[in-house]
């Protein structure tokens, strides 16, 4: 099953449209002071007609610049906000109308807002989850064990949350969101502010969770490494509209991104002249050649090797951040 099919086979059983949005809109009335008592009202279309399907068990990255409508979408998916228009279903439930019922089936991690009890040992927050979500004792024990083991929490359970590092607290928050076996997990910036080791730990855990428990994961992030390492499918949103929905690789084509061939020559030469590539940088005997990311590197390498004294070479993949930035730039100019 490729990701491309996910978006087209929308009628393929209940699992295919586990999360289903049809023309979902969110319009905010914003009032702005324009004078002493005068106020100007205008509407902001935070989410402007978004349609997508997420299959049960999928792990999808949801990215876009600040203010693009990511958080608003997540808030509608969790039932915090009521959509202004369109149809939205999560596990067959209308989130806005049945917020508490949905709450038992989803887990939410807000990267910058902890849900743990600041002054109490970590385990106390988990016990509250146990009771509040009415988790059967045995399942609670099993889930807690699994999270403690995989997220390395054993030594932290009796530590007051205020004494935890940011990375430890994030791991604690993720565990708290998973104790009631949610079918969907929303992660809002789960690796923000974490050190490299913590990031790796969190990503590894999420990958395992998705693979083993089959939890559907929707992830918003600014860290594109998260997406590269976790999500086969990525959705890009800007100005409230879905600009791209597909595999990560495809993003390069859409963004007309370029790969770079770095060649080391025997001596300094004027910029090389080869078809299908252009020199973007020269530094002594080393030159950088940009070529379309979709094209194969082999003919280019052959062409260079045939005409120039080649010593060494390497191919650099396009920077996804640059790709997305380019997409935004294109949209603004067009």
């Amino acid at each position, binding site marked *: 099953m490729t990701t491309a099919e996910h978006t087209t086979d929308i009628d393929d059983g209940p699992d295919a449209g586990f999360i289903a949005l049809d023309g979902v809109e969110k319009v*905010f*009335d914003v009032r702005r002071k324009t004078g002493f008592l005068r106020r100007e009202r205008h509407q902001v279309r935070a989410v402007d007609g978004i349609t997508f399907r997420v299959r049960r*068990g999928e792990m999808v990255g949801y990215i876009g610049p600040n203010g693009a409508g990511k958080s608003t979408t997540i*808030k509608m998916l969790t*039932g915090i906000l*009521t959509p202004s228009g369109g149809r939205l279903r999560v596990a067959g439930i209308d989130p806005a109308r049945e917020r*508490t019922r949905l709450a038992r089936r989803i887990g939410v991690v807000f990267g910058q807002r902890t849900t743990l009890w600041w002054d109490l040992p970590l385990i106390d927050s988990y016990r509250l989850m146990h009771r*509040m979500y*009415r988790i059967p004792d045995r399942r609670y024990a099993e889930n807690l064990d699994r999270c403690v083991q995989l997220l390395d929490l054993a030594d932290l359970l009796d530590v007051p949350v205020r004494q935890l590092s940011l990375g430890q607290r994030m791991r604690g928050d993720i565990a708290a969101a998973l104790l009631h076996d949610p079918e969907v997990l929303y992660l809002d910036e789960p690796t923000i502010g974490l050190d490299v080791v913590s990031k790796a730990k969190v990503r590894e855990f999420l990958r395992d969770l998705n693979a083993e428990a089959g939890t559907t994961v929707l992830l918003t992030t600014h860290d594109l490494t998260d997406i590269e390492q976790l999500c086969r499918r990525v959705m890009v949103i800007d100005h409230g509209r879905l600009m791209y929905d597909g595999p990560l690789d495809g993003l390069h084509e859409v963004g007309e991104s370029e790969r770079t061939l770095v060649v080391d020559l025997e001596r300094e030469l004027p910029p090389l002249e080869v078809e299908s590539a252009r020199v973007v940088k020269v530094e002594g005997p080393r030159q950088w050649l940009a070529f379309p990311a979709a094209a194969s590197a082999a003919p280019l390498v052959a062409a260079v090797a045939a005409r120039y004294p080649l010593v060494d070479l390497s191919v650099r993949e396009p920077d996804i951040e640059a790709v997305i930035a380019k997409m935004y730039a294109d949209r603004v100019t067009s």
Partner: protein
Amino acid sequence: MAERLRQHDTRQEAGAAAGDVPREAPSGLRDGTPEGPLTRALDGLRAYRMISAMWIRSTMAYRASFAMTTFGNFAATVLDFVAILLMFSQVDALGGYGLAEVAFLYGAASTAFGLADLAIGSMDRLGRRVRDGTLDTLLVRPAPVLAQVAADRFALRRLGRVTQGLLILGYALFAVDIAWTPLKVLMIPLMVVSGAAIFAAVFVAGAAFQFVAQDASEVQNAFTYGGNTLLQYPPTVFGKDMVRGATFLVPIAFVNWLPGLYVLGRPYPLALPTWAAFTPPLVAVACCALAGLAWRAGLRSYRSTGS
């Protein structure tokens, strides 16, 4: 894996249908059952209990601080009454009321307000929660938001005010010169409980207003703490318009003035029938219903506008 997942799903559905839920869950609280008002109320109380217990434990993490703030709370409210005692060292009556009578009104208002403050006094923090976005973390929990907000920062130190109110009310009941009847005796607990409910409604309505105006906690305080201060004095001290406002606009007069003046055998400054003194429970129910509606409207507005 797809099959495993589907099994997972059917197991859950079968569980919901057969009642394979944790033993503590009473029937009707399960997933999929339409939630009636009663189940919602029970769910809310349950959440309130759990969250307030967590706050108590949080405060106990700093025992010395807890002891000091409780004492401070008590001392501050005691000083409040000392001010009235000082007044009576200069005059014999306040608005035609003697010390014991003022103490009676004061004690009843203070106890009722103290109970409401103890139960849901932190609701004026709602605006802050809306501003910093932490309200969202409550909205993704399977419990009524009102209960979660009401239990927020539950503080036992507020028992200080209740204690002070009860002490003064107790003193007044001994000192005041009344021909007690069974009806008047019954009126005492009735007015305290109804009064607490009326103040609680004011707290909830004020919090609901903060969905719209997030920095309105001082407006709320004007009605709660301000209302309490108002009620600690006899109505004859104030102008008629003030008394009208407190009777008909924000009906806090039903906390202690109306029932209290009946107990003291005093005429109410406004021309109201005698039976009005017995309406506080009804007024309390009506206030709570209105506050509940205001809360729902506020929450709906938050969920449609974000912040």
